């Protein structure tokens, strides 16, 4: 018996489904299908796209990697914390060492989406997720936008209130922002992304140079783990997110920072904003402004202003510049306050 459906548009078309039992098998299947297969782990991003028929080429096959054993473990190794690709956001947010040593990551994972989605969504899926631009995500590819190989970016002249304040990327356009909460935390903590082929610095992982991608991953490459270096005792990190509602919503602006201090003086800082640009944006001017100074209202204010010094807001999103400025400031202050890492 075919399940009844309320709305015809919600029907997913059929596809071939594989359960992969090893990373090698998943990679082999991906290589076989090229661009016509998608990897599914939590599925919370992919199934939404398939239901809305957002993908221009509907995937021929889905490769389930949840069946690969041991890929959800969070392990402490020498000098680093290894988080398996399939570790759920709940696992990351509640893990003792992540909370104590990489506070920004635990806070970011704990603020992503809603509790249900955190039980399903994985850390690797969170960094590999697609953009949420409403023109891109409009059901049935209603807008043939740049990211789909179409002629123009509809957001540049359209409703761009949640789009990039730091300019576009693809072919001089596409101002859709990267929506991940954990990405800025991973960049601030200088994590490594381990794939089936290589190790990539979190900072270099995100890319919108090619159509339909948000990462530098190749067609037959999957993320297998994320390694976060153990933060030393004088480094404090924090994450702050602004969204319309506290739960469920994607960020309008979020920020993660890791600040190392010698006594009161900042010796090193890594600050990363996200949801403001086409990729997570590490704000070096703000970092430079802070190094060698103490954390106080004046210095963090200047760092916040430095972070958005090169902003070029669109017609409807100038408010995001002010938000970004304030959130950079608050995140740095939070690093000064927190007791734990």
């Amino acid at each position, binding site marked *: 018996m075919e399940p009844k459906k309320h709305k015809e548009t919600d029907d997913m078309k*059929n596809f071939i489904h594989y359960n992969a039992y090893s990373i090698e098998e998943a990679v082999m299947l991906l290589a076989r299908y090229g661009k016509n297969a998608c990897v599914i782990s939590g599925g919370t991003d992919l199934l*939404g796209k398939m239901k809305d028929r957002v993908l221009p080429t509907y995937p021929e096959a889905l490769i389930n990697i949840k069946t690969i054993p041991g890929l959800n473990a969070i392990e402490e190794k020498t000098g680093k914390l290894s988080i398996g690709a399939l570790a759920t956001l709940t696992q990351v947010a509640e893990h003792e060492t992540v909370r104590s040593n990489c506070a920004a990551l635990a806070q970011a994972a704990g603020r992503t989406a809603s*509790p249900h*989605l955190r039980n399903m969504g994985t850390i690797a899926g969170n960094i590999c997720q697609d953009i949420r631009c409403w023109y891109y995500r409009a059901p049935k590819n209603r807008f043939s936008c740049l990211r789909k190989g179409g002629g123009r970016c509809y957001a540049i002249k359209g409703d761009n209130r949640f789009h990039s304040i730091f300019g576009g990327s693809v072919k001089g356009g596409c101002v859709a922002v990267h929506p991940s909460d954990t990405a800025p935390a991973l960049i601030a903590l200088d994590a490594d992304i381990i794939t089936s082929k290589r190790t990539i610095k979190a900072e270099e992982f995100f890319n919108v140079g090619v159509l339909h991608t948000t990462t530098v991953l190749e067609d037959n490459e999957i993320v297998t783990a994320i390694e976060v270096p153990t933060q030393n005792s004088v480094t404090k990190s924090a994450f702050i997110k602004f969204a319309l509602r506290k739960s469920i919503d994607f960020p309008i602006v979020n920020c993660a920072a890791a600040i190392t201090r010698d006594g009161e003086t900042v010796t090193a800082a890594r600050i990363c904003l996200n949801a403001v640009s086409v990729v997570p944006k590490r704000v070096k001017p703000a970092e430079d402004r802070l190094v060698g100074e103490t954390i106080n209202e004046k210095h963090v204010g200047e760092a916040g202003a430095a972070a958005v010094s090169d902003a070029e807001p669109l017609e409807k999103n100038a408010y995001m510049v002010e938000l970004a400025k304030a959130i950079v400031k608050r995140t740095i202050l939070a690093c000064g306050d927190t007791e734990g890492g």
Partner: protein
Amino acid sequence: MADHEIKPSICPYCKKEFDSIDAMKQHVFKAHRGSDPPSPEGDIRLNINGNDYYLSVEPRWTLYDVIHDRLGLTGSKQFCDRGACGSCTVIMDGKAVLSCMILAIECDGKAIETVEGIAEKNHPLIESYVKHHAMQCGYCTPGFVTTSKALLDRNIHPTENEIKEELSGNLCRCGTYPQHTIAVLETAEKLRTGKADGAEKAQGDG
């Protein structure tokens, strides 16, 4: 794509890869003689509310499609169908998850509890929900009840903030939010003191 062509010589039982079909056949003959035939992709077993269901599913069917439309357990509701509202929440392996965003084919062997299972056990949540009238139209209620049950299974001493946080993925258009916190707090109290009818049973099964 030709150089990436998949080898057809993968053991259907243990997924081990071989250089040739003959080698695979020999392996199957040696290692798997007498074992049950491998189940074809799409045949799954779901344990729902303690009952085993053996089903043949299409890859595109979500867990919600199977539970609601195929098995007729109509307690879980579909509203947004995009994982944003919590109406279709079920408890899978002890965690509250959204059945509209999970493919049924990927749930093979999972233990699932739906609002019907909670009703069968006469869980004290139900009494508290009725007493505090934590519903208006009632469409979102099963989602709230399953989410609360998952929380209480894990933590019998939830604070008000923990309950609010846990229920923050469930939407209610009627605005019954304050009542849920009251109902869940009272249920937790009942479960701790063991006063409620069926509380012992619910705890034992939980």
